C-alpha cells in the first residue's frame, strides 16, 4: 500500500519537475535569452520526454508515433534528434558530466563519421525489410526466424530511442513500482537469456553512455531512427521539402571554423559550403553553430522563408545584463 502511494508521489514529483522545466523553457524564450539555445534545448528535451510518456499512456499504436516522427524528419530534418529524443538527452547529459570533469572529447575521423552516417540507412533498410523477408520463410517452421521475428518489428526497433525514462507499461527495470526503461532495453531483454537480461541491459546502458562520454553523441551518428530525408534535397524536384534550413551568408563568413569545432556530430557542411541553404542529412539542428557564430546574421535558421533564429555578435551585452 505505502509503496503505491510512494510511487504516485514519485510520479507526481517527476511530473512537477518536468512541468517546471517546460515553464522555464517558455520563460527563457520570452525573456529573449535566445542565445542560450543550449540551455533551452535541455528544457525542451526534458519536456518532450514527459510528453512522450503521456503519449504512450494514451496510445498503444506505436506505429502512428513512428509515422509522425518520420514525417517530421521529412519536413523538419533531424529536429527530433536534437530537441526531442530522450536518448539524445541522456547523451547530452553525459557531455555535461564530462565538461564538469574537464575532460576533452575525441573527434572521430571525418571519413569514419561519414561512413557511420551512411550506415544508418543500411540499418533502416535492414529493419524495415526483415519482417517481410521473414514472413516469406514461414517462421513457425524455423526457430531462428521465429526468434528474430519477435521484437524485430520495425516499430519496436525504430522507436527504441524514443522510450522515455518512465514508461506506462510493464518493464524489467522497476523502481518502487515505477516502470523504468532505457532505449532498446526491452529489445535487449528479449534476446538475452532470462538470467542475463538484466546484465545485458546494464551492459548496453553502460556502453552507450560511456561511448558518448568519449565521443559527443556517438549513438546519434548511426541511429536508424535519425534517418533524415534531407538526403532527398540533393535531387532536383525535392529541394522544397525541408522546411527548416540553415542558411549561411557567404559574405559575412570569414570561415573562422567555430561552427565546425562546436558541432556535436561533426557536420562539416556548415563550414565548408560557400553559402546559401545548407540542409545536410547529418545535422540534427541543435543550433549550437548558430549560437556560437560570432558574426551577426551570418548563420540563420529559416523555416519556410522566415528567420527563426540567427547568429549574433554574442559579445554584445544582452539587454537584460
Amino acid at each position, binding site marked *: 500500500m505505502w509503496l503505491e502511494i510512494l510511487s504516485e508521489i514519485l510520479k507526481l514529483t517527476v511530473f512537477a519537475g518536468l512541468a517546471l522545466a517546460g515553464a522555464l523553457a517558455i520563460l527563457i524564450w520570452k525573456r529573449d535569452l535566445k542565445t542560450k539555445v543550449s540551455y533551452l534545448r535541455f528544457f525542451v528535451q526534458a519536456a518532450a520526454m514527459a510528453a512522450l510518456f503521456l503519449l504512450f499512456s494514451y496510445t498503444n499504436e506505436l506505429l502512428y508515433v513512428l509515422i509522425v516522427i518520420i514525417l517530421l524528419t521529412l519536413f523538419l530534418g533531424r529536429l527530433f534528434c536534437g530537441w526531442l529524443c530522450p536518448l539524445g538527452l541522456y547523451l547530452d547529459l553525459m557531455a555535461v558530466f564530462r*565538461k564538469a570533469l574537464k575532460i*576533452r572529447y575525441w573527434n572521430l575521423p571525418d571519413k569514419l563519421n561519414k561512413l557511420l552516417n551512411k550506415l544508418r540507412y543500411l540499418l533502416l533498410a535492414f529493419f524495415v525489410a526483415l519482417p517481410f523477408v521473414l514472413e516469406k520463410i514461414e517462421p513457425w517452421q524455423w526457430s531462428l526466424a521465429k526468434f528474430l521475428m519477435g521484437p524485430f518489428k520495425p516499430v519496436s526497433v525504430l522507436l527504441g530511442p524514443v522510450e522515455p525514462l518512465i514508461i506506462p507499461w510493464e518493464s524489467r527495470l522497476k523502481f518502487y513500482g515505477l516502470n523504468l526503461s532505457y532505449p532498446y532495453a526491452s529489445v535487449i531483454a528479449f534476446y538475452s537469456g532470462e538470467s542475463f537480461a538484466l546484465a545485458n541491459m546494464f551492459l548496453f546502458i553502460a556502453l552507450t553512455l560511456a561511448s558518448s562520454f568519449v565521443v559527443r553523441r556517438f549513438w546519434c551518428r548511426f541511429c536508424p531512427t535519425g534517418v533524415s530525408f534531407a538526403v532527398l534535397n540533393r535531387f532536383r524536384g525535392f529541394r522544397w521539402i525541408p522546411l527548416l534550413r540553415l542558411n549561411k551568408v*557567404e*559574405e559575412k563568413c570569414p*570561415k*573562422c571554423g*567555430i561552427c565546425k569545432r562546436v558541432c556535436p556530430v561533426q557536420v562539416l557542411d556548415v563550414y565548408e559550403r560557400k553559402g546559401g541553404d545548407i540542409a545536410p542529412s547529418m545535422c540534427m539542428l541543435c543550433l549550437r553553430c548558430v549560437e*556560437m557564430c560570432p558574426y551577426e546574421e551570418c548563420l540563420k535558421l529559416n523555416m519556410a522563408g522566415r528567420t527563426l533564429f540567427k547568429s549574433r555578435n*554574442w559579445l554584445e551585452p544582452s539587454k537584460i545584463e
Partner: protein
Amino acid sequence: MEKGFGEKKYMVELSEREVEDLRNSVKATSLKLMDEYIERMKKTWPNRPKIMEYFDEVAKFFGTREKEILKAKEEGRKVIGYTCMFAPIELILAADAIPVRVSSGIYDTTKLGNRIVPVEVCPVVRSTIGVGMIGFSPHLEVSDALITPLTCDGMAKLSEILSDRKPVWTVCPPRLKDSEQSMRFWREELQSVKAKIEKLTGTKITAKKLKTAIETMHRATRAFRRLQELRRGAPVIMGRDAMLVNQTSAWDDIERWTKKTEELCSELEKRRQEKILACAPDTPRIMIAGSPALWPDNWKLPNLIEEANPQGVIVADEFCSGDRFLFDPVGVDEWTMDDMFNAVAERYLLPSTCPCFTSEDGNVDRVNWLKARIEERRVDGVVYHVFRGCMLYAMEYTRIKKALDKINVPVYYLDTDYTREDVGQIKTRVEAFLEMLKSRVEF
C-alpha cells in the same frame, strides 16, 4: 643597447655616439609630429569627446604608458613584443606578460633600415629595422622577447634581423589555412611558443589563467566591435580617431583600454541619439584597404582623406592594425585546456584575411570580408593603400578591383612609401577621388 647579444649577423656596428645622435634627432621629430597630428585631429573634429584625450596620451610614445611598462618590468613582469597580429595575445596575457606590438610607423628610421636591406623592401620592415638599430621604438626596446610571425617575405627576414637585438620566437602561419594538416602545424607552432612564453615568464599557463585571458580579450573585442558598429551610420566619430583607438589597444593595458573604449562608445551613442555628428552626413564614406597605416608617421593617408577638400570620412579600414585587429573572438566550446588552446589557435589562423594566404578560390575570404564591411558601413569608395615593396597587397589588387567593380564600388589604388615628399601629389589624387565620390553621392 643590450651588449653581448651574440654576434651581429645583420646589424651595422654603430658607435654609441652616433646612435645617441640619431636617436635624439628622430625622437625630436617624432614627438613633434605626434603632437602635431593629434592637434590636427582635434581641429578636424571640433567637438571631440574629452575621453579621447586618454587615447592621445597612450598614443604618445615615450609618455606615460612607457613609464608604466617600465615600472611593471621592474616589478618582475615580462614584456613580449610581436610584429604582426598572428601572435597569440591570449597566451601572452595568460602568462601575466604584457603584449606590445612593435611594428613601426616611423618614417625617419627607414633610412637607417636602408643600410641593411634594399630600398625595394616594404617600408614597415625597413622602419622597424631602423628602430631596432638605434633602439628607438619604446615598444621594441622594452620587450624581453619578440614573437615574429613569418607571414610575408619582409616579416620573415625582419625576424632574422631583429634576432641581433632581442630573442626572437618565430611562428610560421601556413600559406594555406583551410586544411587539416595546416591546422595541425599551426597548433604545434603555437604550442612551442606557449612553452617559450612559459619559460621566459616562469608562469605556467594553466586552464584557469587561459580562461581569464580569453575572457579579458572577449571584453576587449566587445568594446572594439561596439566602436566599429558606431562607425556604421551617420558619422559620429572621425575615422582617424577610431583608428587611433584601435591602434592603442596594441600597447595599452588591455583592461583599462576596454574600460575607456566602452566609455567612449557610451558617449558616442549619446551623441548619435542627440544627432551631434562629427562631420556632415553626406560626407563621402571611405574605406582604406591594404597595407597597414601605423601610428605615428603613417597617419599621412588618413590625414589627407579627412582634411581634404571635399572632406572624406574613413568608416572602415582593412588593416591588421585597425578593424581586423580585435574583431574576431575566440569561440570556446568547452572550457578545457585543449579546447581553449584549439580555439585560440583557430582564432588567429582561420578568420585572418591576410593576403599571405592563398587558396584555390583566390583568397575569397578577404573579398568577402571587404564586401561585408562595404555593405554594413555603406562605403562609397575604397582607397587601396599599398606600400611600395608590399608585394602581397599589391598583387591582390587586381583581384579585389574586379570583385568590387562587380558591386559597383569605386576603388582607387594608391601606392606610397614612408616618405613625406609625396604628400602634395597624393593630396591632389585623393581630392580628385573624393570629388568623384562626392558627385556620385549627390547624384
